[in-house]
């Protein structure tokens, strides 16, 4: 299996598993720190994909997430597409590729993406949603680190 096929397969499996977790995890997490697994998937995949691939993965994640939640598909798709693009911008800065950096990038991108969603499609009062956005960004950053390490082991073993 060549590199692009294995990346496509990994992206498909990761997005599917994250979608299932998104659907089921809500009943277990009851705080402001609700992780957004689709955003984590977008950010982590974006670090291994091309700009187009990253944006496509982001848009797919957004549409799937919006569909499961019952939220606006357009805004979810666009904000996650932007997240995919932002990750590739950070990647082009030629920072060191490690789990800590991946966590930080995920936290920043999650915050920007969720903040944008908060303004274009607000679902609750701004104050509470803003706090939830910060909480989600932090949790996403923490969870992205091990996922990035796993993906690096699978997709990019030479540069590990």
């Amino acid at each position, binding site marked *: 299996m060549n590199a692009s096929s294995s990346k496509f397969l990994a992206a498909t499996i990761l997005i599917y598993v994250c979608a*299932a977790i998104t659907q089921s995890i809500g009943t277990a997490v009851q705080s402001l720190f609700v992780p957004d697994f689709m955003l984590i998937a977008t950010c982590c995949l974006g670090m291994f994909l091309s700009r187009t691939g990253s944006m496509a993965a982001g848009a797919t994640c957004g549409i799937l997430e919006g569909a499961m939640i019952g939220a606006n*598909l357009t805004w979810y798709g666009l904000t996650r597409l932007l997240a995919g693009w932002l990750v590739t911008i950070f990647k082009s800065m030629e920072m060191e590729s490690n789990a800590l950096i991946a966590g930080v990038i995920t936290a920043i991108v999650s915050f920007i993406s969720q903040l944008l969603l908060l303004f274009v499609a607000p679902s609750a009062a701004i104050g509470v949603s803003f706090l939830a956005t910060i909480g989600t960004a932090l949790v996403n950053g923490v969870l992205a680190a091990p996922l990035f390490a796993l993906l690096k082991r699978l997709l990019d073993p030479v540069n590990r």
Partner: protein
Amino acid sequence: MGQWQNSQRNAGRVDPVTNVTRSLVSPLANGFSALNFRAADLYSGFVRAPALTEENRRLKDLAQSAEFYTEQVDRLNRQINELRLLTQLGPLPGRERLATDIIGYFPRENRITLSIGERSGVKKGMPVESGRGLVGIIETVEANRCQALLITSRGLTVGGMVLNRNPAQVGFIRGQDGMSVVLSLQDPKSPVEVGDTVITSGFGDLIPRGVIVGKVVQVIPSEEFGTVRAIVDPVVNLGALKEVFILK
């Protein structure tokens, strides 16, 4: 895409993208949910076993004593329906309760996904309640699942009233910040006080009167607009629910 989605939603249906996505994701998601519940139950069993045994015994006693009253209430409800039919008023809504599991909870969007749908007779607009009070209203229905908008959602408005006030204080309940709801009363001198219980008014075809919404925690009179806004804390802890009932 958003407009297409909204037009389907207004009709109580879901768009094909949503339908396909949920159908594909549901099998694995249900597996994760079951695993999650079992792990939580196992932990709870280890940690709280003696307290749970005692609670179980007490609840069995309560259920036994409540059985007599349930029969009596059912008989009286049947009589009310018969009398309404005689006067050509039609039966009251919400007499039948369909038990269902919550298979998805999305606190940020104030929505829950439930495990039954059109095949069980679920329709758009039906109220969802837990044993303690109103949870939300059905928004979209698919064959084997449906999605409800929670009462804390800003997109949901239902008729509400303050219990035990004479004359009845009737207004509209609307979600506020994802955690509380607001009862807006059109009379600025409405005698609402902190601690009052708010229930559904029942002025509709699908939502019955008397389903508890919550307790008033703050009253904000606004004489210049001629209204009173009562901030209501829902009685139901929306995040802690596993099973709910759809009132048919």
